[in-house]
């Protein structure tokens, strides 16, 4: 199997999931860009280029899933904070349901085919 094909599929998955991860982070507390990037970068394999979070935030705002406001910071200039909108909350809830169904389905297939292989080897 070509490794590029695998990483392409993974990067598509990552890309699709990333915006909901951002929404999920914002459900807890409003945060500013750099804070979000750090939180996401802590999740292994989720973010490859940290810079792509910023256009993602712009897009989420354009789609009105997040809103922004300015707040003073102790260090440096005021920061743009992002918070979840009602539409964003709804999108996140919908995705969470879909995701658990999707994940369970994929997991079931992956483990059952693995079990099948084991069985065959016996």
């Amino acid at each position: 199997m070509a490794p590029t094909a695998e990483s392409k599929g993974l990067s598509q998955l990552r890309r699709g999931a990333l915006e909901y991860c951002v929404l999920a982070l914002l459900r807890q507390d409003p945060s500013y860009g750099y804070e979000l990037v750090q939180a996401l970068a802590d999740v292994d394999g989720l973010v490859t280029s940290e810079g792509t979070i910023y256009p993602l935030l712009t897009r989420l705002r354009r789609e009105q899933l997040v809103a922004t406001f300015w707040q003073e910071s102790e260090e440096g200039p005021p920061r743009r904070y992002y918070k979840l909108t009602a539409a964003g909350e709804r999108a996140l809830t919908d995705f969470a349901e879909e995701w658990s169904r999707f994940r369970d389905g994929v997991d079931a297939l992956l483990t059952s085919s693995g079990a099948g292989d084991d069985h065959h080897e016996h």
Partner: protein
Amino acid sequence: MTTMNTDPIVTDYLHRLETAAAGLPTDERAELVADVSEHINSALRDARTADEVTVRNVLERLGPPEDIVSETTGPGSMPPQEDVRRDGRDIAALVILCAGFLAAFVDVVVGRALLDPIVIAALAVWAVATGHVAWRVVTRSPRGYQGGSLEIAAIVLLTAGGFVWAIWSWLAGYVLVVLSDVWNTRDKAVVPLVTVLLMPLGWAMTSPWFGPELQLRGAVTFAGGLGGLLGGIDLSWRLVQVRHRATAGGARRRWWLAPGAVAAVVIGAAALAAGPLGDTGTQEACGAGCGPATTVDQFARIRLAANRQDVAHGLGMPDRTEGRWQWGPRPDPHAVQTQVPPGKSQYDDCWMYDLHTASDNLAHGAICFVADTVVYTDIEPAE
């Protein structure tokens, strides 16, 4: 919200980002660059060091600027209705230019029978721009975010248009400025800001002799004309910057550009006021007795002359609905002095006029200035 990244590696990275983002709407582009710039600052602050390895590491984690920009469009692409909207605005620009040109032509050239070379030059620029915009609309040239017909129309109306029709042209030009995607909020604020700031100056330059209403009108005309001119120059400058950034590989820091532009504007305005706009003929005729007029003073005089119907109205002459003022060439002020009231021996400037309806000459006369004050008027019935 913008912080200074002085490291050349960082500066270069941000320039690449700006170049790559040239296709984005101005606001989004500025926001993206500001966000990434702030990210770099925060990351370097956290690292507590800014040596080259750290900086390169931070930039590597951010990823190539081109990748960042390509993420803005997301899984889908830019909304296609954007283009339709821009087409509509180009047509709006064309309609405003055409209607304004016709109205200005009828009012200024036909109505006042005025053939001032400056007015003709301004109308010519206006006509050329209208043709250009029409061509772009007809051929459906892509406008992009680098500026096109709408921006050119706006600049022409604000600068050249001010010499013909200060207030209307200002309004039409500014509508187009607001519609544009190329200029950001800061750019859009400059024209009204400069205009408002010039109001007190215009008020001071217009003689109180005309009464508060006409003085206000004079002030608005002066501020609109000069504010539109200066603001238009600033907008052209910003447009050139945007285009340069989009075509060349990102603009390098050119420290001399800002002071150079200011100097060019000042020299240009001074040359304009002293040269083609200036009242050189009268100066010569005035001889040694005339004090040197400042350039601003001369500009005010021009504006006053552009408003001469109102001046005449202020003199208590027949309302403009009863007849039209036709202004002849400026005579030698010394020649006018034959009719001068005693004690008044010197004028800075004099204008002759004919008052007539479509068929009859009603009267003719003269109006003379010392500095900005009208000191002599004369009217006598035509034979």
